[in-house]
């Protein structure tokens, strides 16, 4: 069974030209760390403007390193990237005020309150208006539900509160692009759901969201597009529906006589036939399920049930990233 998915439209290897409505474009983006470790390998990423792009990959697959390059924190060894139409890191001053980012977990001054921390980050942005700072900070804190803890020292924040504060700092000014590196790390189920709601709300207002994760379920619930990383390489990217439909459908037949059914399926030219206890399954290919059913009945095989199953997204991702992939549902 082949799971190598050809994604139409934005497939790896053919990055779109400049200024074609993409919030992020990378071309052959490569980072080799000192010591020879290739963390990101010829990445051709195309994140459509307005999408919620899930950047999936197991631990150590290069997600954070890619994000660091997008933000101009790490210089690519070769290749390049464009964020909101600005080449990075050269166009950093023009692009980053329009980008909110969460990189590898929250980091703040432990001896300052949440509010003072946000004031500090806001002061670092040369384009932000100090006259509206207090108002914007209060609004951002409110948005992530931290108003009550605004005056508390960061040191005393729980992990979830820290994560929320980091999101608040990304929302200090209206953004065209949000880059969120594992935003639900450390959040409780309630917090995770709120985060998904927040991302959806932000996206609906027109902000492109680029969110990395190693949790498939999370990406499945909030993203329109996905890119899948495996050991520094992009193995697939495109609209999530296309990835999903990329897997071959299988037909499953419940029958008291699996051996006979398997023979019929084989005679029909179906591949990947597997016999189970009271059931048989096979790759459907281009065959029409009703024809399979008619054939079975014609050959005297009792059919108790028949179903066409598309592989779950989980199956697709396991296929793309190898068995070791963390596919917590």
């Amino acid at each position, binding site marked *: 069974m082949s799971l190598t998915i050809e994604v139409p439209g934005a497939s790896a290897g053919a990055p779109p030209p400049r200024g074609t409505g993409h919030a992020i474009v990378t071309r052959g983006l490569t980072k080799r760390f000192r010591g020879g470790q290739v963390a990101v390998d010829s990445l051709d990423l195309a994140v*459509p403007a307005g999408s919620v792009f899930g950047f999936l990959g197991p631990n150590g697959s290069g997600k954070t390193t890619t994000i660091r390059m997008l933000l101009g924190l790490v210089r690519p060894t070769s290749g390049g990237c464009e964020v909101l139409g600005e080449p990075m890191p050269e166009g950093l001053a023009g692009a980053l005020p329009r980008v909110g980012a969460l990189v590898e977990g929250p980091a703040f001054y432990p001896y300052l309150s949440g509010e003072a921390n946000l004031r500090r980050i806001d002061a670092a942005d040369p384009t932000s208006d100090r006259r509206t700072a207090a108002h914007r900070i209060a609004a951002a804190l409110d948005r992530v539900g931290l108003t009550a803890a605004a005056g508390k020292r960061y040191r005393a924040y729980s992990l979830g509160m820290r994560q929320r504060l980091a999101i608040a700092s990304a929302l200090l000014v209206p953004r065209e692009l949000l880059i969120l590196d594992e935003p639900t790390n450390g959040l409780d189920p309630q917090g995770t759901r709120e985060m998904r709601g927040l991302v959806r709300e932000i996206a609906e207002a027109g902000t492109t969201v680029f969110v990395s994760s190693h949790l498939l379920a999370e990406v499945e619930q909030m993203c329109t597009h996905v890119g899948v990383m495996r050991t520094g390489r992009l193995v697939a990217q495109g609209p999530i529906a296309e990835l999903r439909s990329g897997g071959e459908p299988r037909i499953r037949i419940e029958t008291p006589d699996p051996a006979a059914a398997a023979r019929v399926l084989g005679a029909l030219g179906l591949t990947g036939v597997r016999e189970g206890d009271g059931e048989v399954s096979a790759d459907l290919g281009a065959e029409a399920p009703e024809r399979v059913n008619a054939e079975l009945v014609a050959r005297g095989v009792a059919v108790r049930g028949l179903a066409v199953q598309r592989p779950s997204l989980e199956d697709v991702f396991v296929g793309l990233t190898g068995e070791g992939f963390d596919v917590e549902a």
Partner: protein
Amino acid sequence: MSRLDTPAQTRPETPPTETQPTETHPTETRPTETQPTEAETVANGAPERAAPARRGTAGGTLRLLGSELGLTFRRPRNIAMLAVLAAVPVIIGVVLRVVSDDGAEGGAGSIITAVAGNGMMLTFAALFVLVPLLLPVAVAVVAGDSVAGEAGMGTLRYLLAAPAGRTRLLAVKYANAVVFGLAATALVAASALITGFLLFPVGPITLLSGSTIPLAEGLVRVLVAVGYVAAGMAALAALALLLSTLTEISIGAIAATLVLVVVTQVLGAIPQLAPVEPYLLPSWWLGFDGALRAPMALDDMGQGLLVFAAYAVVCGSAAWARFTTKDITA
């Protein structure tokens, strides 16, 4: 595919950015104020970009410096160091007062007699005590922590993503360390002046060369000495800043700076190494006593200032070269 009805699918796949005015964003509370360059863009005839590249201003840099100074001067550790620095002149003053009361004949040297004779001399006595080590410690802690500390905490990546700008952030960090050095030196002088005025007689000052100047001119000379010492500390701050860009562990940068301060002073004291001495930074720190000569030893002090400037330029450039190209992986 109709059964795959995730909410995500209800969204259009690629709405064009250009048609999404940022003003509709929920966090946008006062659109006209937070988008100052909007009118400018329209005037430039580039309306197709809904959100123009907003550029920073000098006011923004001052705001960042203000934030930096606020962090530095409110941090308990730094306040404690300043408190110690302010206490030392008081302690010296009290000790000298006790010693001079016990027996001025004790032959304890010129400094006791000088201070006992004129309270203003306590300022110079305090600087002589503090400039070789304690003052450099305070400056090294602030400057050595400046970049490495942020890297270690992880806040550096958020500052740079804000985007603070590497050159701008480094300049602000350096300015902050220089201001701290100046404040620490001025605090020592102020504490010494007040203590001296309270514990000892004050009047016209007899200089090292024997001539006498009026009190007001004495105060000017104190200011000159403070400026000179602060310049020496600014040179040290550049060195500490350079070391701070080389590591993510601030204690490492601080310790390395202090090791250099101590080792160079030891080397400077070895007679066989006399040819090297003029190139060592601490050798010039005590040159502030030029302010006590008549006329002021402007040549020597000027040479000291040149050495300080050379250290600041060399270390500052190296720090800049390093910091602007470094990968921020912390």
